[in-house]
Structure formats: structure tokens, C-alpha cells
């Protein structure tokens, strides 16, 4: 096979695995969550079904959730890599994956309401390229559904409703309010990706970049690390629980990053990822075959 054919094949494999299998750092935390819920509770019933669902999806290579979401692709590549060519290949493989039922027909024209059924259109897929110094190509992929996307929030501090000022205590208040408002609607227990600072656009973008981190990684920034732990512990005290059924686990994790802000702006952007946290990634060999699964 040519390098181009290999790139197509690797992209398709990545799509197939992302839709049907959660990364091991996430499945580990889901198992722990199940054990933490009280015996016989509705929360435990929900976690049982979630666990069974993960097993079935992975065994049968079927979508974990019918909302296969926005296809988010992050490519790190060396000089000389053609972004245009990759975009064409990715679109072609997405069409194939849609026809095969690995992805739902999920891209709708907001003006006409038309769904052409192939998942290709303005803004979709969302591909982010980054040129790096290494000579390898890595492709990371996430599928983020609409239910959890809808409970995301962006705050501009100060936020007087909660007496939340332009400091980490204010940031903490608005993050917790976002979790409260989400209740079970984002398919809890979920994961938060948060960005403090930036402009409205870059801030939301960075909040999603946080989902590329493994759940068990450690934030190198001391203040942010402490805040991540505080949010996780506090949010789980809220008692919203799996699916909003009430219970001991409302969040599986919280990841926080930062961007510089303008003197006049102080944004806190919160993206919510459902428990069906579909994230996979590959490193490619010279001939574009998959040399390594990242997560």
C-alpha cells in the first residue's frame, strides 16, 4: 500500500476505535466510581448499565453512544506535512465511517435544517493542526456529543450573582455553579475541561484541549493542580450523581489550563465531557501505518 492509502487506513482505524472504546485512564475511573456508589441505589444501577455498555461497545465495535458528536481531530506534524491532503483524507474516511454506522449522520445546516447525511460541512470535522519539531505525526481524536456540549458555560468575572471576583476563589465559584446547573443533563458523571483567561474563542478552545490530557496526569501548575482537586472533591459533595439520579459521583475528573488575558477581560470557560469520554490517539510510522496507540 502507498503512504496515502496507509494514512486513510490509519485514520479509519482511529475513528473506529474512538467511537467504540474508551481510553484506559477513563475506564479505570469508571470502575472505581461504580464501587463507590451505594448498593441497590439508582446511581449504582446507572453505573452497572454504563459498565455493561462499555463492554458491549468494545466487544462488538459499535458506537458507545448514538450521539457520535463533533469529530475533533488534533494533528501534530513535522514540516512538510500536507494539511490539505490530510483534511481530504479525514473527510473521506468520516464519510465511510458514517456509511458503516460507526458515526451518526450528525452535521446539520442551521439555516435550512438540511442534513446531508455524510458528516461533512462548514466546521465539521473540526481539525486542529500543530507543527512540531519531531519528525513523527500524531493524530488525536475526540468525539464530543451535543448533550454535554450544551451544558458548557463561559463566565466573565466579576460575576456579581455569586459575588465571584477576579481571583481563584471567584473561578472556583463559577465552575461549581456550572456543575450545579448541568445536573445530570451532560450525562454525569462527567469530566470538566476549564480554561482561565484568553479571549472568548481561545478560552473555549483551550478548555477543550484540556480533554486531551489523561485523567491520571498531574498538572504542573501548583495553583491549578490544587484547584482541580478542590473542584473534583467539592463537585462530588453536591450529590447530583450518575445521570442526576443522586449519588456519590458527579464528576470523574477536572482539568484546568490557563491563557493570558487582557487587562479588561477575565473569562472562565467550562467544557463538560460526558462519561462517554471518547478520546484516542495514534503515532504514525514513516509509512503512515499506526506505530503506537497513545492513550
Amino acid at each position: 500500500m502507498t503512504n496515502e492509502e496507509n494514512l486513510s487506513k490509519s485514520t479509519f482505524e482511529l475513528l473506529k476505535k474512538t467511537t467504540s472504546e474508551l481510553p484506559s485512564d477513563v475506564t479505570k475511573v469508571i470502575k472505581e466510581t461504580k464501587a463507590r456508589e451505594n448498593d441497590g441505589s439508582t446511581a449504582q444501577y446507572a453505573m452497572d448499565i454504563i459498565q455493561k455498555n462499555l463492554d458491549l461497545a468494545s466487544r462488538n465495535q459499535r458506537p458507545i453512544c448514538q450521539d457520535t458528536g463533533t469529530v475533533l481531530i488534533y494533528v501534530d506534524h513535522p514540516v512538510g506535512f500536507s494539511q490539505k491532503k490530510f483534511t481530504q483524507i479525514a473527510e473521506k474516511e468520516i464519510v465511510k465511517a458514517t456509511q458503516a454506522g460507526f458515526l451518526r449522520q450528525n452535521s446539520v445546516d442551521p439555516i435550512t435544517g438540511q442534513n446531508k447525511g455524510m458528516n461533512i460541512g462548514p466546521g465539521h470535522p473540526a481539525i486542529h493542526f500543530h507543527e512540531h519539531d519531531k519528525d513523527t505525526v500524531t493524530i488525536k481524536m475526540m468525539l464530543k456529543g451535543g448533550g454535554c456540549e450544551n451544558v458548557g458555560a463561559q463566565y466573565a468575572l466579576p460575576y456579581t450573582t455569586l459575588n465571584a471576583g477576579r481571583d481563584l476563589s471567584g473561578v472556583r465559584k463559577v465552575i461549581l455553579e456550572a456543575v450545579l446547573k448541568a445536573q445530570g443533563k451532560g450525562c454525569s458523571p462527567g469530566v470538566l475541561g476549564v480554561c482561565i483567561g484568553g479571549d472568548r474563542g481561545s478560552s473555549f478552545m483551550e478548555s477543550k484541549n484540556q480533554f486531551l490530557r489523561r485523567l491520571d496526569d498531574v498538572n504542573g501548575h501548583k495553583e491549578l493542580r490544587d484547584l482541580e482537586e478542590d473542584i473534583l472533591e467539592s463537585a462530588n459533595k453536591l450529590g447530583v450523581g450518575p445521570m442526576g439520579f443522586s449519588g456519590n459521583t458527579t464528576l470523574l475528573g477536572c482539568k484546568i489550563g490557563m491563557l493570558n488575558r487582557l487587562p479588561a477581560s477575565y473569562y472562565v470557560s467550562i467544557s463538560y465531557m460526558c462519561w462517554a469520554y471518547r478520546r484516542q490517539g495514534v503515532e504514525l510510522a514513516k509509512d503512515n501505518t499506526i506505530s503506537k496507540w497513545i492513550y
Partner: protein
Amino acid sequence: MKRLNYPFTNEAVRELKVGDQVLISGTIYTGRDAVHKYLHDKNECPVDLKNQIIYHCGPVIVKNEETGKYKVMAAGPTTSAREEPYQWEVMRDHGIVGVIGKGGMGQKTLDGCQKYGCVYLHAVGGAAQVLAENIDEVKNVYLEELGAPEAIWELEVTDFPVVVTMDSHGNSLHAEVLDSSRNIFEELIKDK
């Protein structure tokens, strides 16, 4: 574990209470955003929804071009809150007795459940494979022009697992959890 078997009735759903785990068997119809808007705009419904259950779901469905048969690849619930403005009308005008979805609904729907004898059944969001496994057959499709996720799919299910989170007696687990979590939130954000 309780059972709700086809044909469904007002009397049967009146028996159900918040917290009941229920297995549904029989025919159910998917209907989400576009269908609810369609009914709200007084368009004629292509199926008789009297005593039926509506499932807020936009499934992944593949058509076998040779046999013409549809196969459900994934079919979990979608967020119900978006249908809050319309749901009570569908109860009043079409006589549905059950709504399956996720995330719960608001006061209008809760009042509708009480008045018209309907119940809100919460499926586990994201559990598209467990739920698809309990779908035996796609019996028909209506309003397919709305796009596969938005069409009305007539599904035959066996032991479809749900939890009652809003009953026909004015109780809502969602309202309870919102209240209690809001109280805890107030404590958590108090300035020290």
C-alpha cells in the same frame, strides 16, 4: 423491578412511582426536536400516538440496501429538556402515556403527567449499546425527510431498562436533586 407491557394504558402508568426500575416491552416511537416542533405546528401526525410511548432518541441506523431492512447500531436517549415547551401539548393532544429520555424535564411536563396520566422514564444516557440490544426490530419509519436522527422510528423492544424519575402524582426526582444540590452548593461557595 416492574414491568410495563404493550398495550400501554393510563392505569398502568399511574401505578408507577419515582424510583421504580421498569422493563418496557412492546412498541415505542422515537421523536425528538424536529418531531415535537412538527406536532406543535399542528401538522398531522403520521401515527396514532394514543396510549403510546415516545422515546427521545436519534438513533444510528443502517439500511441494508438488498433487503431494505433497517438495523439499529446505537440507540440511547437524548436530552429531554429541549422538548419542555412542547411535551405537555403532546400529552394533551395525542394522548401519549409515557416519555423516555434523559436528564429529566420541568414543571410543565410534570403538571402534564399528573393531569393527563403520563410518566417520564429515564434511560441511561450514552448507554446506546445496552439499549440497542433490547430493540428487536425496526417496524417502520415516518417523517424520514427530517433526517435519520430526527425521524419517527417505530421500534419493537423487549425488557428495555428505564427508571421512573417523574411520575403522574406530581413527584420529580430531578426537582428533588436540584433542590438538595443547590443547598449544598450555597454552603460550598460561602466566603470564608
